[in-house]
């Protein structure tokens, strides 16, 4: 489904973010990418979203090289990938409901679909009560749950969660991971980047370990080993 083929990223100041990275992700998998800060986890995610271009190598999503997709078609690709970020990245001028609805509007979905799906998804992340609150009125855990609701509302093939628990306390971290597991159980592929040892060890799923831009381990049922 997703294939990183000998991907390297060297920035203008000669710092190496990724060094000859190759691995693939199968449909329905829950894969965690771990590593210290600066190991290249976020760069890997940005490559899949075509937010950054590799210096060499290719990234394939459903057999399409994402960096060959023309700029005007990139939205179609991104709608197939739900994204969750460490800093939530909600639209500050929109309520929780509108943030989730925005992803559907952007995909050209009808008002009826939005009216039926958004409350359902907010209910799934247990935030129906806060639907009309703005992001600055939500706690970190709540904001991240809105971000997850936004990521799943278009029923994407894959969810990319880049350090989603980085700003959260242990209780909220646990909740977010449970939600991601639930989404994975429903068949959606999950790519999770984190440096939270507790999260990885509790998941008992595939773990790809990065160190200084290189893949140093790829374990089927891995643990956080660094």
């Amino acid at each position, binding site marked *: 489904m997703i294939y990183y083929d000998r991907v390297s990223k060297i920035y203008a100041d000669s710092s190496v973010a990724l060094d000859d990275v190759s691995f693939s992700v199968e449909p329905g998998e829950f894969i965690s990418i771990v590593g210290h800060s600066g190991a290249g986890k976020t760069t890997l995610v940005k490559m899949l979203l075509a*937010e950054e271009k590799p210096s060499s190598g290719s990234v394939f999503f459903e057999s399409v090289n994402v960096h060959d997709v023309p700029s005007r078609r990139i939205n179609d690709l*991104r709608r197939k990938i739900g994204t969750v970020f460490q800093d939530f990245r909600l*639209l500050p001028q929109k309520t929780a409901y509108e943030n989730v609805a925005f992803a559907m509007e*952007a995909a*050209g979905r009808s008002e009826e679909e939005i009216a039926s799906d958004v409350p359902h998804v907010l209910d799934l992340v247990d935030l129906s009560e806060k639907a009309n609150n703005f992001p600055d009125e939500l706690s970190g855990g709540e904001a991240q749950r809105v971000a997850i609701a*936004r990521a799943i509302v278009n029923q994407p093939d894959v969810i990319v969660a880049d350090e989603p628990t980085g700003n959260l306390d242990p209780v909220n971290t646990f909740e977010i991971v449970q939600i991601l597991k639930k989404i994975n159980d429903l068949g959606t592929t999950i790519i999770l980047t984190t440096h939270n040892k507790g999260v990885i060890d509790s998941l008992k799923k595939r773990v790809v370990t990065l160190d200084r831009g290189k893949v140093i381990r790829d374990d089927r049922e891995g643990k956080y080993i660094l």
Partner: protein
Amino acid sequence: MNWLSIKRVFRAGFLNFWRNGFVSFASVLMMVSTLLVIGLAMFAGVILNTTLEQFRDKADMDVYFTTDAPDARIVDIEASLKALPQVESVQYISRDDALAQFRERHQNDQLTLQALDELGDNPLGAVLNVKAKDITQYDVIANFLQGQDALASGSPQVIDKINYFDQEHRDAIDRLVQITDSGKWIGGFIIGLFVLITIAISFNTLRLTIYSSREEIQVMRLVGAGKTYIRAPFMVEGVLYGLIAAIITLLLFYPLAWWLGNATEGFFGGINVFDYYLSHFLLFFGIIAGSGVVLGAVASLLAVRRYLKI
């Protein structure tokens, strides 16, 4: 973009405008100052133009006839002058009127009046006072008159003198042309410069407004929104800034023009700014609202474009 998207774009634009309360207020205020300058530039342009036109209007040309010129010839020449497209008006001053005017001009100069009485006969010929539509056209008219007079074959020439051919008169007209022309250029340049500066400031304010939304724009891209779908609400917001600022500006101009009206009429002796504002309201509305809308839309369009590149 389909109808549904257009509806959403407008809704998002209005909501952003409303929810960004303070930023919207500041942007509208900045835009008002720009539109005020544009409006004031319009007033300044009109005042400058009328004043300079008044100066140019002071120029005229006198055609002096010989004392024995038959009235029929003078009437002929007057008619042909009036038929010229360059001529604005022709005033006939008969020999008697010319004498009366001369006497009046020299009423305190007994010596001259005595000399005149000594002569017994009226030494002055009839005069045609010609005003051209444009100051630069006296040359054409004077040459036409000279040609006409020379062409009247068989009869003696009746034009004694055209004062346009006096070097002094010509110089004065030329200088007037020069001064008013450079006045127009310099005035236009200063007005244009002011307008440009305020447009640039307003442009930058809108860019800063959108700069504060740059992360939002990037997030929209990452959740799969198309470029037009992201850009359009910002443009709606920009247009709203422009429209509201235009309405405020037009309202502000009402008391301002009223206050300026009497002052400028007295000082510049011609145009009442208030009357001009009322009679040209549609023009003011078009230019100010148009500038506001175009400025808002274009500034937003260019500012958003920078952050859409991902």
